[in-house]
Structures are given as structure tokens and as C-alpha cells.
């Protein structure tokens, strides 16, 4: 194998990237193509390329139409034309000549003619008809190669209407003595089936014959037809199940000739194809499924070779097991298998594992619970595609309870994602899912921010338009379905979007939209709040013409509605639909986001007011004054009149004793504004209802109930970390849960996976000891670092590895990400034992796989790492990197060295070092490639931090397999609990294009805190000057005889605070944020807690510090 690869790797770059060495004789005609390719490689601009290709095309055109051009030259011209079309330049003049070449050429010329035709033309191209005769002639040729060519092109493309002309000939070939002809005939029939299924209906029994062909190649070809047939009609082919099972058994059992093996795995793609077929056959069919259990089990068992291709088979196997009628024993094994995938350090396997999980959770959501911690880790994975796949998985398990957290995560992803298509896909598709699943339980700000996103858009106008169109299209089709099932909030979003953007879709009649919206109004389930959104949308839409009649009908119905908001909207609709001029002024089209100027002083009403006053109206009183007066009035007359109010009696009787405010509203309203009285009555729980009802957004009235319900669904302990920071208060009341990072992850997990299993949340929190995580970290790091150090020392100390093998290793093992290791070392006993052991211990308890499932497979991983001979697959790990720390920093404490980013040639890691007056970020750049890099440029940026570099961003060079180090001094611009740096690394090899990559690094604000030494007097004067403060009661360290002193000393040690003085029950503490931003702290013992008061001149600093104090005390 390795010599094959070596040859490949030496030949390929030459093959495609040009070398001046002359080719062999038979290829000399290719020199013009070579010149063309070389010319293009040397170009520097698109413009030059265009010029060159146009010149080339002109020259080709001239030559092809010349009568003196030989077929041999024609072949060479066609290849060049193919090359030009490949680069995106049309060469349509050559199409007819391609057909001619297929017709008149011999051997390779003819083949190239066919090739050019299949590349140039699509199936519906009329020129293709000219090919029919040639095909017909070649099919009847005595030259097998010509028959073969004709069948190949027929299998790729053929005009549908001409099939009958050649069908008998192709059928005849099914009995040909040569396997290749039979095989190609089957593939041609497959093509016919794809484009014109009716034409081949009569020969289905011939497919069966092909399936039973003695040649495995012909049998394999027939599977394409069967996969298609069974996909369309699984019932019709159940009787073949046994045949497919038998074939798979033989393949898995190694009964095929050796040349069907790929890296000693027997015909893997055939296995995959068979598994796909079995999957279709066994779906929802117990008796058919039973036939295949045994072979599936065997497939799982046989796939022990550690190679990508076996994992590809396993993936298909797992999918099959989860699709067919379940068998618990197999399910268990498949679940374990998925575990091995997702826990794999190899990114491709992890990806596939997530994909399998995504598929599987649709059958069994509980499986996601087993892997929840891995899923959480994948969410934070530096690779975007892994994140994306994880989100995809999360969307499959979205339910009413976890919807907020998942949306949070999605928004987080959207913020970092740069690719517009993904954004549109994700925003559009998933918001719909989330809305319809999460529906009314979500907080109102989610639909709000979605609408904001829609209206504000992204950077590009075109993408905005696409997203909006996408929204309009999908919502119209939703409304055409069963809108009654959609949650109210989603309906509101739909109404808004249609009102704003349905005009973007030109072929969509306004009338249609209006009718759809009117249908919503007629539904019983639609809430009045939603109705008002609908009416708003209609108002925006009804532009003259047909719309008016619908609008009139609707507005007539609702202008007498009991709900005043609705009545208001209906009136607006009525007036605006009849007065286009006014409408254009009030609701101008395409204003986009131009900010509206709001005259909050309402000065334009001054004239009206003074007129009214002059006419004897009472002057305006602000609400609070009104309420006070009313309350006074009420205290006199409450009892007699209370019951006679025309409002809903129940609401009054419940609330009147406790809340004078509500009553005052209602009684006040009965006098002058019955509008409000309805609102007040319908939402009697709100005590401060007046202002809220009149909020600018109509739905404001429901904010509180919505929030309440959300709180009920998601208990405080289950909140996401982002909420945690703000929800400090609720945490101090539940001190049993220590918010270590692991616990945070677990909390995130429990909020994500809530509602999946019957006892999900219980069992999750029961495992609050973060053992699996810790165990994993510890288990992994020593092994991998020692492995790495071995490797490194190996490559440093003993250079007997020849250049050749290095190249080989390099290309096969390290350049190709997560390439399976093919060296013989890999197959040594220790590995297989490790794996066997892993499997063995895995068998026992699956439900607990969070703990157990992960650890055994790690044994496997370690074995892998230790046995891994590739010297530069692993970048130097923590231990080694820390030796690269600059001398002046080496004595100081530094954070764990974390990887930032890596590509095929550079691995970046970083840590931060706390100096007394400074915080230094150290970035390690490891060049894992063989070549030296002359210049590496690092750019760091942060919203919260000031970054100053000691090396001006240019790191200089990094030799192959060596580490370059760069230092930055950081100080805080804007405090935040965690501050983040984003960076770009760009570099260039001596030859090659510039490369760049991005990364981010997060560190806690506490790393920037230093003690501030001052006297009590100084403290006193400073205290009064500071304007930003926060207060909170924190957990006290109560098991100490002197709780205050003990608590303060914990804070001092953990956060580097300076304790100024302790006086009795009170203590004062001071610190500074780098460079010189003071923060003062005052603590007092109060009712068994530590009452902390923080003050600082810097906004947000007290809040952040409070967070760290709380954590420090809780962790203690």
C-alpha cells in the first residue's frame, strides 16, 4: 500500500500542477494542452485569464472547422475545449465536432469524442439526437471496446424518446459473455429506468437475472436499480430480502476475489449499498427485519479494522439498525458504536457520529441523553461544521422546554458564522421549527429579535432579499396548510413578515395574501392579539384594487369588535384602504430602517390642547396623580359601588382587597375611557396595567404571563451559562450547586436535553459530580503528551527517517486530516487489545455511558496515540509548549495552554500569564509542516480589551516543526465577566498562496484583577467619588469561627484583592483592574450572609467582580 501511495503522491502534483519534463511519446500530442495549462497557471489576474482563453478558443475554433484537421488533432482540440469550458468559458462551437469525433474517430479518439459530448451537452440538448446513430452503430460493432464506450455514454445520458431504438440491443448485451459488457448494459438499463421508467417495465425479470449473475460486478451494478425500485415500492421486493442478506453475508465473510478489497476490507461500497437496501426493506416490517438481524450483527462485529472505510460501513449499519424493526441487542451495540464515533478525536468520525446521532434521535430521543456532554463539547468545537451539525442535532430534539436555550445557541452560532447561505438556511428553516415547536412558551423577545434580524438584515442586500423571500414563501405555504395548529406567536410573526415583505414576491397576488390572512381572522383559535397583528398586516397590504373589498369586509366585522385594539386596527384599515394618499403617507413603502423621529413632547398637539382648555376641558393629569386622586376618592366609596362596576365581577372580587390600583383603574375607566376597561378586564392579573397596555407594541400586554410561564418551564438551575451571569441572585439561594465549568456545562446539558427522557432532568442533576469530565481530562493528557514527546524526541534526535518516508507519512498521515493510520504498527496487538478491552467493559451498562461509555473508548484512544508513529500528527502538547514560555515569564503562574486553531501546517495555542502589573498573552505557533514559513502575521482584536504587542504583529518565521512564540500585553477597555480576543493568523510558504485562519481566545476578567494597597482614609474619600455600584448578599464561609475574616481571606487569595481593614462585623477591601481602575468593596455580616457592596468609577466592573466573588465563595 505505502509504495502505491508514494507513487501516487509523486505523480499527482506533477499530473496536475505541471512540470516542464516532457511526457512519454504517446502523449506528445498533449503538448498544446500542456502549454495552455502552464499559461493559465502563470497568470495573475482573472482578466488575463479571460484574454488567454478567448485567444485559445479562437484558435480552437479555426482548427476544428478546417477540413485538414485529422481526428487525432481533433481529439486534442476537444480536450482543450473541455478545459476551457471547465474554466467557465463556453465553447459551444465545438459541440458538433465532439459528436463528429465520436462518430468518425477510432479507439481513444472516439472515446474522447463521447467524453466531450457527455461533458458538453445536457440530457435535453437537441444535438444529442445526432449521437443516436453513432451509438446504434457502436452497439453493433464487433469491437468490444466500441460496444463498451457506447454503453458507457448511454449510461450517462441518452435522449429519452430514442430509448426504444436501442433498447433491444442493450437488452441483448445482458447475455454477453464478457462481464464488463453485461455490467455496462445493466447500468444503461438503470439510466433508462431513471429517465423513463415505463420503457423498461417489461424487463424487470432480467434485473433479477443480473442480480444472480455469477460475476460480482454485474450483481453490484444491478443493485443500483434495486435500490431505486425498492425506494419507490418496498413492498414489491420483500421476497428478495434473503438474497440481499445472503450476498452481504458472503461479502462480509470475504468470499469475493481479493481485488474487490479496499485496504483489506471486502468491497466496502458494495456493503454500503446492500445495507441501504436492507434498511429500506426492513423499515416498519418486523418479519423482514428478523431475516437481517444476524447479518447486521456480523457486520458490526467484522468491522474491527481501524480504518475510515470500516467506519463508513458502520455508519450505514447503525442507520439501518435504527430504521428497521428494533431489536434491543442490536440497538445497544449500535448505540455503543455511535459513542465511539462521537467521542473520537478524529474530526471526520466525530462529524459522522453527530450525523448518525441526528438521524437516530428522531427514532429515540433518549440516545441524545447518553451523549449529552459530548454534544455540549461539540457545540464549543472550533470547527464550524461540527458546530453546525450539532445545532442540526439539537433542532431535532427541540421541545417546548429547551427551545429557549437552543435558540440561544443558534444565535451564538449565527454571530460567528460568515457564510450567508448557512445563515439563511439556519435562520429561515430553524426559526420556523422553533416557532412551531416552542410556540407560545418562548419569551416574546425571541420573535422580536427575529423580526429585527429580518428587517435590519445582514451586510448584503441580496442576502437580505433572499432571506425575506424565503420567509414569505415558507409562511405562505404554511398558511395554505393548517394554520390552526400554529402557535399564536408564530402567526403574529407570519402576519408581520407577510405585511412587510410579501410585495417582494412579484408573482404573489396581494389578494391571495389578504385572503390567507382573512382566513386567520375567522379561526376560533386565533387570539385577539394575533388578530390585531393580522389587521396591521392587512393595512399594510391593501393597496387599491382587489384588496379593498376584502379589507372592507374585514374592517366592517371588526369595527364593532368588543376588543378596542381590534376596533382601532379595523378603523385604521378601513380608512387607510379607502384613502390611498393618506396611506402612502402613513405607511410608506420601502423605507427600510430609516429611523423615525418621534416627537415625544407631542408638541404638535399644543394647538389642540389649548383649544380644548379654552373650551373648558380639564387639564391633563399624569397617571400617578390621577391614580392617587382616584384612590382617595375610592377609599370613601369603595364598598357601595365596588360590586356594581360593569366589569368582570370575578376579577374585581379577587383583586379589590389587595390591589387598590387595579380598582382605581377600572373605576376610573368607567368614566372616560371604556377602551381600557376591556383590557383591564381581560388581563386582570396586571396591576400596573395602564402603561403596558398602551405600549407601542400591541403584544406588550402579554409579556408578563409569557415570562412567568417560561420561568416555570425552565427552573433557575437549568439556565444557560449566559443567563447565569445575570441570574446571580437566584444562584446564591441554591448554594448546593457549585458552578464549576463542568457544572455549567452540565447545566447547559440539562437545559438542552430537558424533556427528552422520562427522568431526564432528575438523573442529570443527580450526576452533578463532574467525574466523567475530570476523569477524561486526566486520562487523556499524560498519555497524549508522553506520546507526543516521544514523537518529538524521535523526530528531533533520530533523523534516520529518509526523506521519502517522511514525504509519505506527511502526505498520507498528517496532511490528510484524520486519515486512518496505515502503518503496520497500528495493527499490532496492543491496539486491538485496547479496543477489545474497551468493547468488553462497555458491554455492561449502557444507560450510564456518560461515565462508562467515555472512559473505555479513551483507553482505545490512548492506545491509538501511543502507537501512533507519525511524528508530526500531534502538535506538541501542554508540557512541551510550556517550555517555550519566554524566560522572564517562566516562573509566573500561567493558565492552561489551550489550542486556538490548526490547519494543515500551523497549530496555534495560547495561555495567559499574570504579572504583577500586567497580563501577558503568549501565543505559541507550531509549524507542523516540513517547510519553513518566512513570515507569519498575527492580528488580535477585541471589543473589551486593549492589545499591545511586543512584536508588532509580525512573528517572523517558523521553521518546519518548530515553535514560534509571540507575546501580547492586555488591558481591559470594557469590563465583562469573560473577555474575548479574536484573531487572524496569516502566513505564506515560500511558494504558494497566502493562507489565513481565525481563532478566538477567552479569559475571565478575574485574571486582570490585582490588589490595590491603600489606607482606610484614602478608601473613605475614594468610596464617595465612585458612581457605579452594586449590592448583593453572598454565601458566607460559615464553618469558620471567624466567618468574615475567613470569607475575606478566600476572596483575597482567589481574586488577589487587598483587605484594607476589618472592623467588627464589617470589612473593607480594595483592588484594581489592570491597568489602574480601582474597585472598592464593603462587606458586612448580615443574617448569616455576607452583604457585599461594590463601587467603582468603571461601569460594569462592580457587577463582574461580584460574579467572581460569588463564584469564589461558592467554590470554596
Amino acid at each position, binding site marked *: 500500500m505505502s509504495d*502505491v501511495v508514494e*507513487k*501516487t*503522491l*509523486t*505523480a*499527482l*502534483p506533477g*499530473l*496536475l*500542477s*505541471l512540470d516542464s519534463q516532457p*511526457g512519454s511519446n*504517446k*502523449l506528445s500530442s*498533449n503538448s498544446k*494542452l500542456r502549454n495552455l*495549462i502552464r499559461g493559465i*497557471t502563470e497568470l495573475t489576474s482573472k482578466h488575463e485569464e479571460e484574454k488567454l482563453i478567448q485567444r485559445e478558443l479562437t484558435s480552437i475554433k479555426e482548427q476544428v472547422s478546417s477540413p485538414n484537421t485529422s481526428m487525432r488533432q481533433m481529439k486534442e482540440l476537444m480536450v482543450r475545449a*473541455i478545459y476551457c469550458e471547465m*474554466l*467557465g468559458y*463556453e465553447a459551444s462551437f465545438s459541440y458538433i465536432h465532439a459528436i463528429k469525433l465520436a462518430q468518425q474517430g477510432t*479507439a*481513444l479518439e472516439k*472515446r474522447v469524442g463521447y*467524453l466531450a459530448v*457527455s*461533458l458538453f451537452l445536457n*440530457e435535453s440538448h437537441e444535438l444529442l439526437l445526432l449521437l443516436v446513430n453513432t451509438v446504434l452503430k457502436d452497439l453493433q460493432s464487433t469491437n468490444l471496446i466500441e460496444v*463498451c*464506450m457506447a454503453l*458507457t455514454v448511454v*449510461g*450517462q445520458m441518452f435522449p429519452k424518446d430514442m430509448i426504444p431504438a436501442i433498447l433491444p440491443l442493450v437488452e441483448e448485451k445482458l447475455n454477453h459473455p464478457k462481464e*464488463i459488457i453485461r*455490467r455496462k448494459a445493466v447500468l444503461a438499463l438503470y439510466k433508462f429506468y431513471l429517465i423513463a421508467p415505463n420503457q423498461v417495465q417489461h424487463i424487470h425479470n432480467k434485473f433479477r437475472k443480473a442480480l444472480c449473475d455469477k460475476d460480482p*460486478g454485474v450483481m453490484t*451494478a444491478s443493485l443500483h436499480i434495486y435500490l431505486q425500485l425498492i425506494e419507490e415500492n418496498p413492498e414489491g421486493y420483500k421476497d428478495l430480502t434473503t438474497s440481499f442478506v445472503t450476498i452481504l453475508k458472503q461479502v462480509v465473510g470475504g468470499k469475493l476475489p481479493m*481485488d*474487490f478489497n*479496499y485496504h483489506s476490507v471486502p468491497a*466496502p*461500497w458494495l456493503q454500503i449499498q446492500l445495507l441501504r437496501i436492507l434498511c429500506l426493506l426492513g423499515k416498519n416490517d418486523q418479519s423482514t427485519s428478523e431475516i437481517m438481524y444476524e447479518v447486521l450483527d456480523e457486520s458490526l462485529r467484522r468491522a474491527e479494522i481501524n480504518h*475510515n*472505510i470500516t467506519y463508513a*460501513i458502520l*455508519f*450505514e449499519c447503525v442507520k439501518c439498525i435504527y430504521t428497521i424493526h428494533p431489536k434491543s441487542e442490536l440497538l445497544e451495540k449500535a448505540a455503543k458504536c455511535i459513542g465511539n464515533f462521537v467521542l473520537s478525536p478524529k474530526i*471526520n468520525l466525530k462529524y*459522522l457520529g453527530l*450525523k448518525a446521532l441526528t438521524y437516530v434521535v428522531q427514532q429515540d430521543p433518549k440516545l441524545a441523553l447518553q451523549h449529552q456532554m459530548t454534544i455540549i463539547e461539540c457545540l464549543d468545537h472550533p470547527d464550524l*461544521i461540527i458546530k453546525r451539525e450539532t445545532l442540526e442535532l439539537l433542532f431535532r430534539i427541540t421541545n417546548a422546554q429547551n427551545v429557549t436555550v437552543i435558540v440561544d445557541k443558534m444565535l451564538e452560532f449565527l454571530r460567528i458564522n460568515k*457564510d450567508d*447561505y*448557512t445563515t439563511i438556511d439556519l435562520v429561515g428553516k430553524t426559526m420556523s421549527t422553533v416557532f412551531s415547536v416552542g410556540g407560545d412558551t418562548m419569551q416574546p423577545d425571541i420573535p422580536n429579535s427575529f423580526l429585527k434580524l429580518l428587517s435590519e438584515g445582514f451586510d448584503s442586500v441580496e442576502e437580505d432579499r433572499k432571506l425575506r423571500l424565503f420567509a414569505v414563501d415558507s409562511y405562505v405555504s404554511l398558511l395554505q396548510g393548517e394554520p390552526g395548529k400554529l402557535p399564536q406567536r408564530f402567526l403574529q410573526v407570519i402576519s408581520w413578515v407577510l405585511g412587510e415583505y410579501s410585495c417582494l414576491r412579484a408573482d404573489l397576488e396581494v389578494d391571495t395574501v389578504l385572503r390567507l390572512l382573512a382566513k386567520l381572522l375567522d379561526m376560533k383559535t386565533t387570539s385577539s392579539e394575533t388578530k390585531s397583528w393580522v389587521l396591521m398586516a392587512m393595512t399594510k397590504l391593501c393597496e387599491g384594487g382587489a384588496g379593498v373589498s376584502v379589507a372592507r369586509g374585514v374592517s366592517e366585522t371588526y369595527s364593532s369588535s368588543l376588543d378596542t385594539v381590534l376596533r382601532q386596527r379595523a378603523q385604521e384599515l378601513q380608512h387607510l384602504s379607502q384613502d390611498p394618499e393618506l396611506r402612502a403617507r402613513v405607511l410608506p413603502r420601502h423605507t427600510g430602517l430609516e429611523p423615525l423621529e418621534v416627537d415625544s413632547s407631542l408638541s404638535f398637539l399644543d394647538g389642540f390642547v389649548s383649544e380644548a382648555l379654552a373650551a373648558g376641558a380639564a387639564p391633563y393629569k399624569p397617571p400617578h396623580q390621577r391614580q392617587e386622586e382616584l384612590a382617595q376618592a375610592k377609599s370613601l366609596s369603595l364598598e357601595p359601588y365596588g360590586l356594581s362596576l360593569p366589569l368582570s365581577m370575578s376579577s374585581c372580587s379577587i383583586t379589590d382587597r389587595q390591589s387598590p390600583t387595579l380598582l382605581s383603574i377600572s373605576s376610573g375607566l368607567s368614566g372616560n375611557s371604556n377602551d381600557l376597561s376591556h383590557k383591564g378586564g381581560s388581563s386582570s392579573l396586571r396591576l400596573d396595567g395602564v402603561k403596558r397596555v398602551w405600549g407601542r407594541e400591541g403584544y406588550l400586554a402579554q409579556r408578563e404571563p409569557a415570562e412567568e410561564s417560561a420561568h416555570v418551564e425552565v427552573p433557575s438551575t437549568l439556565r444557560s451559562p449566559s443567563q447565569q451571569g445575570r441570574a446571580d441572585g437566584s444562584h446564591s439561594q441554591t448554594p448546593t450547586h457549585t458552578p464549576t465549568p463542568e457544572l455549567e456545562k452540565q447545566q447547559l446539558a440539562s437545559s438542552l436535553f430537558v424533556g427528552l427522557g422520562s427522568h431526564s432532568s432528575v438523573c442529570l442533576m443527580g450526576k452533578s459530580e463532574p467525574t466523567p469530565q475530570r476523569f477524561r481530562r486526566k486520562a487523556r493528557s499524560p498519555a497524549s503528551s508522553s506520546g507526543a514527546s516521544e514523537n518529538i524526541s524521535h523526530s528531533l534526535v533520530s533523523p534516520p527517517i529518509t526523506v521519502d518516508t517522511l514525504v509519505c507519512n506527511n502526505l498520507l498521515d498528517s*496532511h*490528510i486530516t484524520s486519515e486512518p493510520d496505515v502503518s503496520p504498527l497500528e495493527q499490532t496487538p496492543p491496539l486491538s487489545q485496547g479496543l477489545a478491552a474497551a468493547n468488553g467493559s462497555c458491554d455492561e451498562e449502557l444507560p450510564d455511558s456518560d461515565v462508562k461509555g467515555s472512559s473505555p473508548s479513551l483507553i482505545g484512544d490512548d492506545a491509538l496515540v501511543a502507537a501512533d508513529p507519525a511524528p508530526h500528527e500531534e502538535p506538541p502538547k501542554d508540557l512541551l509548549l510550556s517550555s517555550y514560555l519566554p524566560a522572564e515569564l517562566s516562573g509566573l503562574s500561567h493558565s492552561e495552554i489551550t489550542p486556538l486553531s490548526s490547519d494543515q501546517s500551523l497549530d496555534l495555542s495560547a495561555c495567559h500569564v499574570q504579572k504583577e502589573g500586567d497580563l501577558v498573552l503568549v501565543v505559541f505557533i507550531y509549524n507542523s509542516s516540513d517547510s519553513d514559513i518566512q513570515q507569519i502575521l498575527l492580528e488580535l482584536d477585541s471589543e473589551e480589551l486593549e492589545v499591545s504587542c511586543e512584536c508588532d504583529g509580525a512573528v517572523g518565521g517558523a521553521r518546519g516543526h518548530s515553535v514560534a512564540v509571540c507575546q501580547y500585553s492586555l488591558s481591559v477597555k470594557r469590563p465583562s465577566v469573560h473577555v474575548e480576543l479574536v484573531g487572524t493568523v496569516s502566513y505564506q510558504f515560500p511558494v*504558494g*498562496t497566502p493562507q489565513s485562519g481565525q481563532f478566538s481566545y477567552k479569559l475571565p476578567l478575574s485574571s486582570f484583577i490585582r490588589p490595590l494597597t491603600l489606607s482606610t482614609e484614602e478608601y473613605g474619600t475614594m468610596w464617595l467619588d465612585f458612581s457605579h455600584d452594586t449590592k448583593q448578599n453572598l454565601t458566607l464561609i460559615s464553618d469558620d469561627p471567624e466567618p468574615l475574616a475567613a470569607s475575606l481571606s478566600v476572596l483575597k487569595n482567589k481574586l488577589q484583592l487587598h483587605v484594607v481593614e476589618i472592623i467588627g462585623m464589617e470589612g473593607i477591601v480594595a483592588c484594581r483592574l489592570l491597568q489602574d481602575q480601582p474597585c472598592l468593596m464593603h462587606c458586612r455580616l448580615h443574617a448569616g450572609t455576607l452583604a457585599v457592596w461594590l463601587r467603582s468609577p468603571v461601569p460594569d466592573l462592580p457587577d463582574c467582580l461580584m460574579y467572581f466573588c460569588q463564584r469564589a465563595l461558592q467554590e470554596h
Partner: protein
Amino acid sequence: MITFVLMVNRQGQTRLSRYFQPVELSRRAALEADVCSFVEYKDFKLVYRQYAALYIVVGVTDSENELSVYELVHNFVEVLDKYFSRVIMFNLDRVHIILDEMIQNGHVVETNKSRVLAPLTALDKMGE
């Protein structure tokens, strides 16, 4: 299902492209322009594999088994290697002919190396 196969050099220049589903010419060039660093690009899912200065990029549908395609690429490269030996060549046509033997209509139709190469070697013999 496989939707296309590209061979691209490190400069992002396409060396070979084969589409199994119709994609307009104008869109192809744009698609091939900066494909290497993406694994998901527009509505395509990409499987890519690097060999020294050469990237092989395969577009697949969502239902395809990415890892099997990843290995298919390697199989393809091994076949190329077996055929082209060490001589440096610019045989766009021959690479295409090999690919045609392996993938048709977006499906893997042959992976057995000697069988993949049989038609081409026969053609070469005829030409001599």
C-alpha cells in the same frame, strides 16, 4: 448521492471537474473559486481531501455517507497512481475516462482497480 467531483490545485485553479447534475456554466466557476476551505458551501455539501498541492473536492447530497466518499477519493487516487506511474502527464481526457468508470449518475459503479482501468488500458493498446 455524488453531485460533482473537482480537482483543484493550491492556487484554487480547477484541474478537472465533472458534474453529475446539471449546474450552469457560470455557476460552476464561482463554485470552484473558493471551495477548499469550506465543507458546506451554498447548498452543496463538500468532501475534500488533499494530496500535496492538489485538492480533490466532491460535492454530495445530504443523504450521502461522507466518509465513504472520502475513501472513494482515495481509491480514485490509488487508481490514478496505478495507471499513470511516474511519468508526468496532462491527461485530462484519461482522468475523465477513469472517473467515468467509477462514478455514473452520481453513484459509485466500480471500485475494483483493475476493472476500472481495463477499458482505458485496452484503448491504449489499440492506439499503439
